[in-house]
């Protein structure tokens, strides 16, 4: 049954009382970032954003909506799959060998407050990569299973959003403990339950039953958001084949003439998971460490082999990124690697837009066919 919450202070308080570190959107230095929320007052009430290829600006809204700001520069990825982690430490032993120790860190208990549907799906995609295979990353698994997820249905898609065409939004389907829909202008939220843990939490805070008209009205707002997406991915069902058949496309030269191979798109993407490892020693050579950090397929060293990197041209690196994201991700992990959040478009310094690149590849393919 849906409920109405008057503000989010009680919800936030209950999460804190349960020992969660509550992470959510907050206004900081001209952007809506994800950070620890000391109280529900830290939410970015009244802030909206203006998005365009290569551009992000916050703006004051006429209302005091908390979640009417589209996807920001960060996703939830850094919390679940941190940019840097220490994997283990090694020490020389007396007999000339070495011993290796892994620290048993207590995983943080995060409550994610305000996970947009695109980002919720991105967490599902990341789960599949990180813990869905033969060698699950247990540290990720611990952070992930400990997390309490409060999604928020989207009523405010941006100029660069295309989750509707990717089938990931604007309404969250599964994967949350609770899902909110903001009744914009009222300071109230419709709350629906996804799990037993979500229901138990709601039981402990003041709430009202939502009547049918309010529920329907709120969800109609969400459904209407699907038509206000600034972008659309053309024919998403055919992407795997399109990309597999476009390895020799001329369009890659065109995009390479614009792309700076800076890797921003991979850093902001909520599903890009690639890492590298660094082995370091201290000056005595007695103590060694292996660290893992995010890496990018745009980095020249990414494909390093003793005889030279495999992908030296910018063209081959952009092709690798887009082909993986939209095409071979299906082969490797059984879904698309793109959820339509639009971050890579916004944070690309030269405004490269993957929906446009796909449209061009499609056009080229059709020309080749004729």
């Amino acid at each position, binding site marked *: 049954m849906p409920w109405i919450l008057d503000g989010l202070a009680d919800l936030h308080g209950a999460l804190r009382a349960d020992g969660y570190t509550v992470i959510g959107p907050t206004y900081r230095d001209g952007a809506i970032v994800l950070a620890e929320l000391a109280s529900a007052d830290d939410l970015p009430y009244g802030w909206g954003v203006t998005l365009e290829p290569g551009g992000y600006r916050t703006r004051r809204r006429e209302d005091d909506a908390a979640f009417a700001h589209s996807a920001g520069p960060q996703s939830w990825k850094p919390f679940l799959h941190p940019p840097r982690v220490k994997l283990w430490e090694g020490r020389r032993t007396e007999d000339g*060998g070495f011993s290796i120790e892994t620290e048993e860190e207590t995983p943080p208990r995060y409550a994610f407050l305000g996970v947009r549907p695109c980002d919720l799906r991105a967490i599902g995609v990341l789960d599949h990569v990180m813990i869905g295979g033969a060698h699950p990353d247990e540290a990720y698994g611990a952070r992930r299973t400990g997390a309490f997820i409060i999604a928020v249905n989207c009523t405010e898609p941006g100029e660069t959003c295309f989750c509707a065409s990717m089938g990931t939004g604007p309404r969250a389907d599964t994967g949350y403990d609770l899902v909110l829909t903001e009744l914009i202008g009222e300071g109230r939220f419709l709350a629906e339950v996804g799990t037993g843990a979500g229901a138990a939490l709601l039981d402990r805070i003041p709430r009202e039953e939502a009547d049918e008209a309010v529920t329907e009205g709120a969800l109609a707002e969400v459904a209407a958001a699907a038509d206000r997406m600034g972008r659309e991915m053309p024919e998403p069902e055919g992407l795997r084949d399109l990309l597999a058949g476009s390895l020799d496309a001329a369009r890659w030269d065109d995009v390479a003439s614009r792309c700076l191979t800076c890797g921003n798109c991979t850093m902001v993407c909520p599903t890009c998971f690639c890492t590298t490892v660094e082995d370091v020693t201290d000056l005595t050579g007695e103590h060694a460490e292996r660290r893992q950090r995010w890496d990018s397929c745009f980095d020249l060293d990414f494909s390093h082999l003793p005889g030279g990197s495999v992908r030296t041209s910018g063209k081959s690196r952009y092709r690798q990124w887009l082909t993986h994201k939209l095409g071979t991700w299906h082969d490797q992990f059984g879904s698309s690697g793109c959820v339509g959040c639009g971050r890579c478009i916004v944070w690309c310094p030269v405004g490269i837009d993957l929906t446009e690149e796909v449209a061009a590849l499609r056009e080229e393919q059709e020309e080749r066919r004729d």
Partner: protein
Amino acid sequence: MTAMTPTPYRVVTRHAETHDTVTLTLEPCDAAIAPVRPGQFTLLYAFGVGEAPISVSGTGPLLDQTVRDVGAVSHALTVAGPGQMIGVRGPLGVGWGIEETTGRDVVLAAGGIGLAPLRSALLYALEHRASYGDITLLVGARTPGDLLYAAEMADWRGRGVRVEVTVDRAHSGWDGQVGLITTLVSHLDAAPDAVAFVCGPEIMMRLTARELLARGIDDVRISLERNMRCGIGWCGHCQLGPWLLCRDGPVVPYRDAAPLLSVREL
């Protein structure tokens, strides 16, 4: 202990194969890694230097690993003497699948260090000699001095393997063949239902596989090399088209690899 933690092994013997390549035999300090199938690899860790993916080139519970010195990690491994500790993660990847190809002729074609992963398949077939038809080993090396396992070849011949060797450049005293390995393939006498395992530089694998297909051998499997930072599907570095080669390879059917290998910089 996580999937990223090396298991301590110790060098039992170090055998210099050539001026830049050694075969280390490793034994576990305590617990061993799971049994290794022919064609699988491990990530070998030299303390403080780093890890490199290295094929297992034997079949026993002790790990034979043949390493060519080409950079920081492989150098540290090639200078490791008896008693030295090496970290091991594995076994990783899918192997040649020779366990399932019983009853058929076996062709193994190697270029350079590519013989290392093939040796495990060869030894496996010899240990189960009655289960296989004719076994042919074709080896290409730059010079006679670059030949790996030279001392073992007589033994392999004695156990019924047809071993043919060719070099790019010979010195005086070499009475073997000089030229491309594809020439050896063109003289091959193997049944069309033979299975062929090929490992070497990518261009050598493509030319060899094409020649094998031309000889009517359809089941050609190659072992590919890409950068590997994790070996367990975490890091994304080993991608080639639809594959994560540490997980779906390094051995793949040539038929599926051919269209990918023909695209530059894929």
